[in-house]
């Protein structure tokens, strides 16, 4: 049991049995309260799959659960149940569209009536549920929609001996629906991702639709997909969206899968870096024995320069010799970290990704010595309020193994 999802509410469709039930329980194990949506409200047979059975199982894990029985092709019923979930659990943070109709039939055997059903359950219902769940998510600026797709809907699905055009077309539609929604919703903080089993999951739904001819190799237990869904909704929705995540690929990349991994394909559908500004790139100095003492001096908040033990002269950049008396007796000594702006430019050109423009590049003249200067950035003040001669003091920015000496205005002298 973990508590990574504590306080969050997940609505899972198809949660009375199979993959949906596994997902509901996995989310509950990680702390989520769960709304269980499926067609079979109760079962006369003890232990048989039903909404009520899953609700009990979630509650047995110590989480709140709400039964939301409905037919996903019935818009009114779906809308009603979502309203009830919101009334009882207060919110929906995670929507998992797992319910699906399977049709392992070819072109000739797939009736158009069956095709309508496939469309209604596999595409239309996820769309409606997303619409219903979205207002709260966008209001909070955070949310996860996870749609269960199928590898056969990806181009690489051609490697899998599946035809089944009706079923595959609706899963492909769901993938593209997710893709387009992810693009649109990214600015709101809501993520839309697709997960899919990497192999054949022998659930009851598949068994009902399948015969021996469709028993595929590479079977995987339903918990793989459940863990995949849980991992996806643990991610920051602003950073992880528009992805197609296959279960074994993910688990292998997390080191949670024994045996030969299928591999974590880059199945990204949306390059979110196009939408969210990347972390500003700091090109960092390569540390050498000669320069490391300067670049790591800020670890204790004290700026240090190479210093001559014989004549007291500071030399920068560091070198193996005092630049004034040529003594080799040099080390590093602290300075006050205070000085004045000697030269300044307001840079407007995007040289490096992620830097907010404009920014100030300056040469700061340290107080200790009239030729001890450092190129740096002046931060913390609007660029147009900084001028040559202004008093500044060092502040360090820690990146990896480097403490970059930046400067801010000193303010009124004491």
């Amino acid at each position: 049991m973990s508590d990574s999802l504590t306080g969050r509410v997940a609505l899972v469709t198809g949660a009375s049995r199979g993959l949906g039930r596994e997902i509901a329980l996995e989310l509950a194990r990680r702390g989520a309260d769960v709304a269980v949506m499926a067609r079979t409200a109760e079962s006369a047979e003890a232990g048989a799959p039903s909404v009520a059975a899953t609700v009990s199982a979630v509650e047995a894990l110590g989480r709140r659960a709400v039964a939301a029985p409905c037919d996903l092709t019935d818009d009114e019923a779906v809308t009603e149940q979502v309203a009830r979930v919101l009334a009882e659990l207060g919110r929906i943070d995670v929507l998992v569209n797992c319910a699906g109709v399977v049709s392992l039939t070819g072109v000739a055997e797939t009736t158009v009536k069956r095709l309508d059903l496939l469309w209604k359950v596999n595409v239309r219902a996820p769309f409606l549920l997303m619409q219903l769940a979205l207002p709260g998510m966008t209001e909070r600026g955070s949310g996860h929609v996870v749609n269960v797709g199928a590898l056969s809907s990806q181009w690489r699905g051609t490697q899998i001996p599946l035809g089944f055009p009706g079923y595959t077309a609706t899963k492909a539609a769901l993938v593209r629906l997710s893709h387009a929604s992810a693009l649109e919703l990214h600015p709101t903080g809501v993520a839309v991702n697709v997960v899919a089993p990497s192999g054949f999951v022998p659930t009851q739904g598949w068994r009902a639709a399948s015969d021996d001819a469709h028993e595929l190799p590479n079977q995987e237990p339903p918990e793989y997909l459940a863990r995949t869904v849980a991992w996806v909704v643990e991610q920051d929705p602003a950073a992880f969206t528009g992805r197609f995540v296959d279960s074994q690929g993910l688990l292998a990349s997390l080191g949670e899968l024994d045996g030969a991994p299928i591999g974590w394909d880059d199945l990204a559908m949306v390059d979110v870096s196009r939408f969210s500004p990347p972390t500003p790139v700091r090109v960092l100095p390569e540390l050498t024995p000669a320069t490391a003492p300067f670049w790591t001096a800020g670890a204790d908040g004290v700026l240090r320069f190479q210093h001559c033990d014989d004549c007291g002269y500071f030399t920068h950049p560091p070198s193996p010799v005092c630049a004034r008396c040529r003594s080799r007796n040099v080390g590093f000594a602290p300075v006050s970290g205070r000085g004045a702006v000697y030269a300044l430019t307001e840079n407007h050109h995007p040289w490096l990704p992620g830097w907010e423009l404009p920014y100030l590049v300056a040469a700061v003249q340290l107080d200790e010595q009239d030729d001890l200067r450092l190129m740096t950035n002046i931060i913390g003040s609007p660029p147009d309020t900084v001028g040559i001669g202004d008093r500044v003091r060092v502040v360090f920015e820690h990146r990896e193994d480097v403490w970059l000496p930046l400067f801010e205005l000193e303010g009124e002298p004491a």
Partner: protein
Amino acid sequence: MTAPGERDAVISGIGQSAVGRRLGRDPLDLTVDAVLAAIADAGLEPADIDGVATYPGAQTQPPGFSGVGVTELQDALRLELRWFAGGLEMPAQLGPVVLAALAVGAGLARHVVVFRTVWEATAQGDGGRASLAPGAAHGPQTEAARVSGFMQWMAPFGAPSAVSWAAMAAGRHFHEFGTTREQLAGIPMTLRVNAARNPAAVYRTPMTLDDYLGARMISTPLGLFDCDVPADGSTALVVSHVDTGGDLPQPPVRIEAAGTAARGRVYRDQWDDYTTMGLRDAAAMLWERTDLGPADVDLAELYDGFSIIALYWLEALGFCARGEGGAFVEGGTRIALDGDLPLNTHGGQLSAGRLHGLGLVHEACLQLRHEAGARQVPGDPEVAVVSNGGPTGGALLLTGWR
């Protein structure tokens, strides 16, 4: 004082490839065009060439900054060399010219091809960043990108480009001497007027003060038109021993003096005086090696990678007092083709294209040979000063053959 050794050499031939934006041609292809043109201009055959010198030598970064070294040219033309040199750590792009002069003076070679090739416009045509200084990280940047050498003191602060230090220097000049952008505009605007008379220039349409001031700010106080324009092109010279001069079909250009000093601090973040950069040392040394002085100079081809650098050269070479460069170039009258000191008569790197140094030498030779056509400086000019580089750099005083 014995005569300076550089007077043992002359520039006996000049050549240039096509120059332009996005020519899409291989840098060696451009180089061969320029080199064969220069050899022919000198009245020589490739077999006569026994030396090659180039800046910065073959290197792959920054994109389009080089691409051709001595080896590529030597092999392409199967030159039989007695002497060669290529590299970056020299008095800027004039370094190989000076080395070639010394080589012919010392008898190591008789006719040395000197070339400089750039194809930055094509190499950066995929949207790659423009003109990062050598040593900066390129391509997709990651947090893991690391830099060493002098770049480590600048790139971590978002200043991987030459414009960062040039702009800081300009800002310091503005601060100390009251120089203004309106004054500085005199350089790019005058050069644009010159470029209109140069069919090979990249930018030839007139530029108003409003155009200049309204252009995109790059790094205060330098805007877009204070930065030279990346171009593709190759320039070549033939440097020969002075005693061949009379035998050649072209009147060669004499090398009167060279300035090659680096005396102050040369790290780009550490100049002792941001209002002179290191180029003041090369400029001072130039006048130590000749009886001529600034008043004898008929025209100036001064490095203008950024407008402010040309202004610094004007001050450093003594055409005006230190700090008075702004007033000197204001309005452009003094530096116009018909002014007291015509500057960058082909449009400079700011308008004609960033051929990186040797383009300025090429233009000085054309002017001293009185072959500059519509942009020929009037009055049969005899003395030209050429400078390359900044922060550190080199300077040459060139004279006509007469």
